[in-house]
């Protein structure tokens, strides 16, 4: 018996969301009195044994370059095989891009109950119950998993990474891997940019910015904070910003520690995608803007004056 954690790699490096999944999985293993093991698919540049500091004892590395790009079918088969070998009873994913693609397939393959979007450790006092987000962040559901093998996909930024001591034993696992049917022909990564779903801080702006030519001050603030940038739906619809920046009920749902909303009214559909943020700051010239009701800190003022001042103040404290 073990808890198996899928460790997700991008260009050879372990993703931040996977470190959260590792920390979480190690904690679940402790809860169940068993050990945590990890599985890595494809080429890895990072030193995998160092992942032991997140509490994982052993890492199964399927070091096969045909797994360098996500193919849900091939990944599912490989993980199922490793899960079988290790007698995994709980399999943990991050509910990120790879997790959303692979965890449901694995659930169907193993007939293992799946909780996607988990936000807390399982409650094992009476059965096995995992809390997840529902209704786009407006509520939680406690999901009972009754199957022998259970799968949890942990929401990014829902569980804090903690590192201790320890190294993991890395074992090369030679299993038959299917040739991927999904052939990746181009990768367009905005380099140097913080991925929105992994970002600790997100600076977001809405129609109050008046036009795409005014985004400079938003980007400057984001840069000063090492933050990702986001926007409201009408801004993406008008092509002022790329559609992958659209957050909300019908865009990306995020849960950063700090969300700064500039010139966004705070419509219910917008809030649905950002209300899991730990701290919300709203800058809006209208004191009646609904967003203030969901905010922790607010400034009623003109974004074109407030935002540059804020960037200056942050640069000052950061030195």
């Amino acid at each position, binding site marked *: 018996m073990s808890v198996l954690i899928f460790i997700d790699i991008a260009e050879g490096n372990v*993703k931040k969301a996977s470190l959260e999944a590792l920390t979480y999985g190690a904690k679940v293993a402790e809860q169940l009195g068993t050990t945590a093991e990890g599985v890595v698919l494809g080429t890895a540049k990072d030193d995998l044994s160092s992942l032991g500091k997140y509490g994982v004892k052993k890492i199964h590395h399927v070091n096969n370059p045909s797994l360098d*790009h*996500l193919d*849900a*079918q091939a990944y599912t088969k490989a993980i199922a095989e490793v899960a079988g070998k290790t007698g995994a009873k709980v399999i943990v994913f991050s*509910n990120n*891009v790879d997790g*959303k*693609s*692979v965890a*449901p*397939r694995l*659930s*169907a393959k193993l007939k*293992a*109950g799946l909780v996607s*979007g988990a936000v807390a450790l399982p409650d094992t006092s009476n059965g096995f119950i995992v809390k*997840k*987000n*529902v*209704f786009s962040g*407006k509520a939680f*559901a*406690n*999901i009972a*998993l009754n*199957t022998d093998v259970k799968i949890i996909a942990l929401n990014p930024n829902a569980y804090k990474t903690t590192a201790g001591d320890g190294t993991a034993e890395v074992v090369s696992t030679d299993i038959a891997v299917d040739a991927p*049917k*999904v*052939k990746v*022909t*181009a*990768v367009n*990564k*905005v380099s140097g*940019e*913080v*991925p929105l*779903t*992994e970002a600790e801080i997100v600076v977001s702006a809405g129609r109050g910015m008046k036009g795409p030519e005014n985004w400079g001050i938003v980007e400057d603030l984001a840069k000063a*904070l090492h933050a990702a940038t986001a926007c409201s739906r009408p801004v*993406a619809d008008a092509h002022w910003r790329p559609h992958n920046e659209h957050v909300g009920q*019908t865009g990306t749902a995020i849960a950063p520690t700090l969300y700064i909303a500039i010139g966004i009214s705070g419509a219910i559909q917008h809030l*649905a995608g950002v*209300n899991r943020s*730990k*701290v919300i*700051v709203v800058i809006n010239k209208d004191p009646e803007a609904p967003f*203030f009701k969901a*905010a*922790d*800190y*607010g*400034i009623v003022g*003109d974004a074109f004056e*407030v935002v540059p*001042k*804020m960037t200056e*103040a942050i640069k000052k*404290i950061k030195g």
Partner: protein
Amino acid sequence: MKILVCISKTPDTTAKIAFTANNTKFDTNGVQWIINPYDEWYSLVRAIELKEADASIVIHLVTVGAADADPIIRKALALGGDEAIRVNADSHDSFYIASQIAEVAKQGGYDLIFTGKETIDYNGSSIGGMVAELLDMPYVSLATKFELGGTKATVTREIEGGEEVCEVNLPLVVSCQKGVAEQRIPNMRGIMAARTKPLKAVEPTSVDALTGIANFELPPAKAGVKLISPDNVEELVRLLKEEAKVI
């Protein structure tokens, strides 16, 4: 070429979220129902666009739900699609629903199956992946662009911090999000035509759900906003650093 578009009925985005029966059931009192926006705006519209480019394409819609889902599926048919299938069952969990859709798909022999990236009520993002596994088809999730060239699809999908382009042969399951298509409003002709399009109810196959909902919870209310003067932006930054400790 046959395309199956999965349609889910969800509460309107402004619906009040409340629970009954000791917090075990969603309170549907006064709730307006809509087509799940991801299903409507992206997967359904993209399927319709493909058919507009190639009239030989046949589009079927599928939903798993009781008879009260019929207005939703008619609304979807008003946008486009040739016929609809409703699997007459209350939904249990994602695996149950995916198994029903997979059964319909097996009977119909589809080349392409579209789902939305998730539903806005249960936020599972699992149906597409499960259906693909049950049918042993490739799966591309979180698509932002979808092009068809003969029996090959070129799909752009989201990755952390960007996008990647991939090529896959049909048959294929794809989950769609923003970028794949633009929202459309049904017109009068579509609404009239939808009335006579076939909507077939079929009985579910027997499948055990893998999960159950123990209960629901609402998040704790926010303490209230602390307002800072626009002439004192330094104070906001100080509070974020020293009080909230987030920068």
